[in-house]
């Protein structure tokens, strides 16, 4: 993976083609280098799965995409817009919090530990951002919430609080909550890792449905079966770098790098 900062900026992205472009993305927490130069591209409608050992920087990279983490070096574009900065006359200007918030509306994120708002019902969780951020009226938002709950198979749970739902149900509500903002891109940060094994399937089923509807998705996961069947591309990360990328079936069946082989032999 050769990286250099002198590389010319990529051509402006044709709309509808590249959704996410990462160029030499680096991130450190103090002295700890977590990302050491990530280059990749995700096309609109693509489902990219990112796999790799823990500590390899998968989640950090995902969090950089919606600017929950600030990139230290390199560039990240989402739908042709630079993440977190504005480039003008060769200078970078940090975006204001309100501008960052505006960009995040278009990027849905699903967390490992669901992070539902415990003081709100399932419908309340889903309505929160549309009503508070987009200013959509409550009746309309409520109708949409019920629609989305039906889509994730929880039509009867609108008035349940998160503590009354199983992990799988909570994660499905979390997916519905992210969808309520009509995102162009969905980020999944190990969405099934905190679930009991028998609950994993219901969440993956919802994600498969999303992929079939053409949603652009980046999925950090340990579910190799999902990656193989639903993913359009598979990226193997280790130690802050993309070690290997390609079509999931090829990478899983015929890994080229030693590290990929070693990792897959442990998880498959």
């Amino acid at each position, binding site marked *: 993976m050769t990286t250099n900062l002198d590389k010319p900026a990529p051509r402006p992205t044709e709309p509808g083609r590249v959704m996410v472009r990462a160029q030499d993305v680096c991130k450190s927490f103090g002295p700890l280098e977590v990302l050491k130069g990530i280059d990749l591209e995700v096309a609109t409608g693509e489902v990219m799965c990112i796999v790799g050992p823990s500590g390899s920087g998968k989640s950090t990279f995902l969090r950089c995409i919606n600017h929950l983490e600030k990139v230290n070096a390199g560039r990240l574009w989402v739908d042709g817009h630079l993440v977190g900065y504005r480039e003008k006359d060769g200078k970078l200007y940090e975006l204001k919090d309100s501008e960052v918030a505006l960009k995040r509306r278009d990027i849905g994120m699903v967390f490992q530990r669901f992070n539902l708002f415990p003081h709100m019902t399932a419908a309340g969780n889903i309505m929160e951002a549309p009503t508070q951020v987009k200013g959509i009226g409550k009746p309309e938002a409520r109708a949409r919430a019920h629609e989305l709950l039906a889509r994730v198979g929880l039509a009867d749970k609108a008035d349940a609080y998160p503590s009354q739902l199983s992990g799988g149900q909570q994660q499905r509500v979390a997916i519905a909550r992210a969808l309520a*903002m009509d995102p162009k891109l969905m980020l999944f940060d190990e969405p099934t890792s905190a679930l009991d094994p028998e609950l994993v399937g219901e969440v993956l089923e919802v994600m498969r449905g999303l992929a079939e509807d053409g949603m652009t998705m980046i999925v950090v996961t340990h579910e190799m079966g999902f990656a193989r069947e639903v993913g359009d591309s598979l990226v193997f990360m280790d130690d802050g770098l993309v070690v290997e990328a390609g079509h999931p079936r090829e990478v899983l069946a015929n890994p080229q790098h030693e590290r990929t082989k070693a990792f897959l032999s442990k998880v498959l």
Partner: protein
Amino acid sequence: MTTPATPPADKQPVKREPIKAIPVPHYGRWVAAVVVLALVGLLINAFASAKIHWDVTGDYLFDDQIMKGAGNTLLISLAAMAVGLVLGVLAAIMRLSGNPVTSTVASVYIWFFRGTPVLVQLLIWGNLALVFPTMFGQNTNDVITPFMAALLGLGINEGAYMAEIVRSGIQSVDEGQTEAAHALGMSKGRTLRRIVLPQAMRVIVPPTGNEFINMLKTSSLASAVVYPEVLQKAKDVYTHNLAVMELLFAACFWYLLLTTVFSIGQYYLERYFARGSSRALPPTPLQRIMANVFSTRRPGVKTR
């Protein structure tokens, strides 16, 4: 292979003999109880034979002046607590903000007002006229009345304590909540108001109740700036009739009454906020008393 003896479907419930064991004798408890009862008896005897005119205490319990003082105690406590709450939330948010100036100012505020006695602070407010003869174009003593001095002294002091309570409440909310809200495009202010503070309340409410009950008692210090709360009123009366102890006990009665009423209120408030977060609600006071009285044999209570 032997099949385990399966009970027949129509098995009659066997009447089992309950264990009848001789309980461990708690001699130590009996000794301690006798010693403590003896000491309490001595104390009661001392006060009963002391030169206290209990009838005077009784006469003044519901005296107009004393009742007015109790009303003022409640008023200054509520008002100072309100000031403390507002300042506390403000200082906590300032302290947690990314702005180094606001967070330093908040830290210094908390440091100073928690680090000096509230009595000293009250006296400083009460004597402000010595260094600022006029304020807002008026005589300072007309602006800083005893009520104002007590309100500022108690309220600003309380704000420093409340700031720490609110801060710990805000910090108790999982960071994932803030991240989830931000990921949905919610601004910082909206995230705080809609997501973080409602969840922080569970942690903030119980110690705030404690603070208020403390405030009911701490407000007695306002007598140092001659605010006519119940202690000050009692003092006023006993400087005339010299029944010092009698009136101090009358004041105690009102403090106990107020703290007891608000403690019961606080208890049920805490129970309410514990819902959903703890599986078993804490026992009510009556249940606790019963459990203590019958502590030697508690059916159904497992001890580890």
